[in-house]
């Protein structure tokens, strides 16, 4: 009996003294993947929403004869997007916009030939970026345009310029040469206005924000052009080109 008793006391001390007092936690992160059976109640609940979501996504809002894709330094798709920001933006903010921009990396897909659906616009603009206006001084705008030139050209509207040795040259804004001392109203995504893609020169300027998604601006522009009887085929027009 004696050794058993000793062992018991030892066990009591070691277990209750050391382990039993310690709170413990174990963890796991369950990956949710296609191998897991879908809960039928939740799946049925989602079905009606899903059906009308796809109906909305498949909703035809315009037509493109030739389709549009992204290219540098300039592309029809980029011109379409920045024209949308400028035109619809002027209506939303009820003021003149001198220039509008989209960062090249933010254009995620293309507009196919044929019907343009709401889903097509989600493809090119899946991000929930907001349309932002900023009133910037000409010298900062020039430094932003140099940034665009260094990156081989981004979509823009309201400006024409050349790219020479990674710098913006011959910059015209509203048909006048850019003035370093003037103040210009420019439209960007909140991503760029906040200094995304290293556009730090824009960060200091106050942001005018109405919580409008860029995607909704694009959708509205397609609808507007369609109402006017136009197909969505924006051409390149040497807004931005390499010069020697």
């Amino acid at each position, binding site marked *: 009996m004696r050794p058993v008793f000793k062992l018991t006391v030892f066990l009591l001390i070691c277990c209750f003294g050391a382990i*039993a*007092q310690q709170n413990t*936690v*174990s963890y*796991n*992160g369950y990956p949710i993947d296609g191998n897991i059976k879908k809960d039928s*109640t939740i799946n049925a609940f989602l079905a009606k*929403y899903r059906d009308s979501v796809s109906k909305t996504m498949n909703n035809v809002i315009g037509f493109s004869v030739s389709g549009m894709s992204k290219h540098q330094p300039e592309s029809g798709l980029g011109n379409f997007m920045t024209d949308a920001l400028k035109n619809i933006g002027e209506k939303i903010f009820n003021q003149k916009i001198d220039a509008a921009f989209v960062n090249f990396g933010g254009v995620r897909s293309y507009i196919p030939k044929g019907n343009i659906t709401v889903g097509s616009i989600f493809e090119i603009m899946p991000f929930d970026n*907001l349309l932002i206006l900023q009133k910037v001084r000409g010298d900062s705008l020039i430094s932003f345009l140099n940034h665009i030139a260094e990156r081989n050209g981004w979509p823009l509207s309201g400006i024409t310029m050349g790219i020479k040795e990674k710098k913006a040259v011959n910059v015209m804004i509203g048909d006048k040469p850019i003035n370093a001392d003037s103040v210009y109203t420019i439209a960007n995504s909140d991503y760029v206005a906040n200094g995304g893609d290293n556009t730090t020169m824009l960060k200091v300027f106050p942001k005018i924000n109405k919580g409008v998604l860029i995607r909704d601006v694009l959708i509205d522009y397609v609808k507007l052009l369609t109402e006017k009887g136009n197909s969505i085929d924006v051409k390149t027009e040497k807004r931005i080109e390499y010069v020697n």
Partner: protein
Amino acid sequence: MLINRKTFLKQTAFAGAGLLASPLIGSGFAAENKEFYNLTILHTNDVHSRLDPFPMDGSKNSGLGGIAARATIIEQIRKEAEHVLLLDAGDIFQGTPFFNIYKGEPEIKAMSMMGYDAGTMGNHDFDGGIENFATQLKHASFPILLCNYDFTNTALENKTVPYKIFQKGNLKVGVFGIGIELKGLVPQNLYGNTIYKNPIECANTTADFLKRHGCHLIICLSHLGDRYDDNKISDEVLAKENYDIDLIIGGHTHRFFTEPKKYVNKKGGDTLVNQVGWAGLQLGRLDYSISKTNIKKSIKPNTVLIRGKS
């Protein structure tokens, strides 16, 4: 006398052997031990309206996520675990066409169906406007917890609560929520008259209240973000600057933690932080075993040993 001693030996030997043998079978240890209260916490964050799996378009998340699959896992765990709390750390809204069209109704309804116990608000939950969030909350069977937003004179006035205390068996669990600074992050017209208050101060006041009301475990649902390179307030800052929080379930920064991070708080106790990325790609699980002995002498701050994967 002899019988009594024999019985005593038999019982203690049995208890001792049980304790020794149990670690060999991993997490089963706690579940089979009468010295502990068990609580399983399931959590999500930044689901961003990802109700269906990512589309099969060749991108890296194709076919992953989706609430119908998540619901299956949750139900399975509920069948096995003794006590479960299902929590969300905000940004329920925005990110798929579901939100653009339905403004969050299916998200909130589905969370109610899945039996969420509580959630908090992320910055994107203001995306449809504060009135919209108030409207969608009518579909919620769970509370939205926030202790550092003052919603006086907004559509959310009296629609959220700072904390909720859950009785899980003998365990009293206090859960509260904190939100991120909205200025500069969310357009002012969307959050309206909401006043943001210092999250550290509010968290400490609320956690102290919960402690004094006998909560054995205190959980903070946070949308602050786990950590930043500058001095911005984060879960990491809160973890170091608090007194009574056992666990911060975080979000906003979309980070997938491989395991919970442990910090020493102001009382010398442990505060854990965990986060499971975004889009409902993962369901987080934490299995707590709280020592009954510790609870009886609750003067000491809680410390916790991270045991590994459950």
